[in-house]
């Protein structure tokens, strides 16, 4: 177990991923959901990087570039999400996402 390998990172990523999923599912606060999303993205990034390192060859650089993009996109997403949240709040006077079911079928 001392020899840290790919699996260790993957397991960790899985834990974080699932924690993120759980957060997304169990929070009614929009920001909470956003945090879950961030966790999920992070878990994915860990995977990318870990795969990049342990897969051998030149994949490492690709993995890091992709991870970079993901981080950027996460930032952008967060920006937009926060903007949506403020707008949402303004319209519904709450941040409870369960109230935003006006589009339900």
């Amino acid at each position, binding site marked *: 177990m001392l020899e840290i390998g790919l699996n*260790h990172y993957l397991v960790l990523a899985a834990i*974080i991923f699932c*924690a993120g999923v759980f957060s997304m599912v169990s929070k009614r606060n929009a*920001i909470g959901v956003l945090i879950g999303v961030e*966790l999920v993205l992070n878990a994915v990034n860990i995977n990318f990087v870990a795969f990049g390192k342990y897969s051998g060859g030149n994949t490492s650089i690709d993995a890091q570039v992709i991870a970079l993009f993901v*981080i950027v996109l996460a*930032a952008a997403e967060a920006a937009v999400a*926060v*903007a949506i949240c403020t707008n949402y709040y303004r319209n519904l006077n709450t941040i409870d996402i369960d109230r935003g079911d006006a589009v339900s079928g």
Partner: protein
Amino acid sequence: MGANGETVTVLKPQLKLILAAVIACMAMTAAPRVAMASGGGGLDEGGFVSDVLGGSHPLFEAVGFYLFGGLAAFSAIAICFTKDVVRMAIWLFATLGAVAILYFLLTAYFLGVIQIIVYAGGTLVLLIFGVMLTTKSPSMQFAVSKIGLAAGGVVSLLLFAALMGLVLGTDWQRGEPTGSIPVATLGRDLLTTYLVPFEVISVLLLVVMIGAAYLARQERE
């Protein structure tokens, strides 16, 4: 919906916490910048970080992984069971930080730095602002029904089990782990091989900036 004053009074006890978080983020953000500025290319090979955390010694790597990996996992799980949004943000900060360290352990130094700068420094702050903007009381909680919680738990655990199965049931071994990648290589690649995505994402950032600003503007008919 309470009156304005009421909101303010609710805000006050949390203010210190929020400020602490912001300062911590700034500090974290500052550290790599200092390191990069001072070390130059030292970040690449043979530097302090790589010596201590870079997995030159398996024991270091193991200790580092368990320490920071455990922290990341713990704080991620903590987020799940925290009901206060602000506390969630702080746990998230811990997670992001720990993950940044893990990047270092994976010899993706540049990425680790970016992680701290963008996430901890940018996204997290953004989130906290979001909290402040959208909540009458930052600690305001909306309880999810027990069934919802249970369903989420079950699904997460199932997902976890599935992922574990997937992860552990697969033989990933392909080759020797690669070493660290010089930032110069990364930069060159970004502007050659990945030029188009890079440009696209730049545009995207621009659009997001404008869009977010538009969405968040105060006035509404």
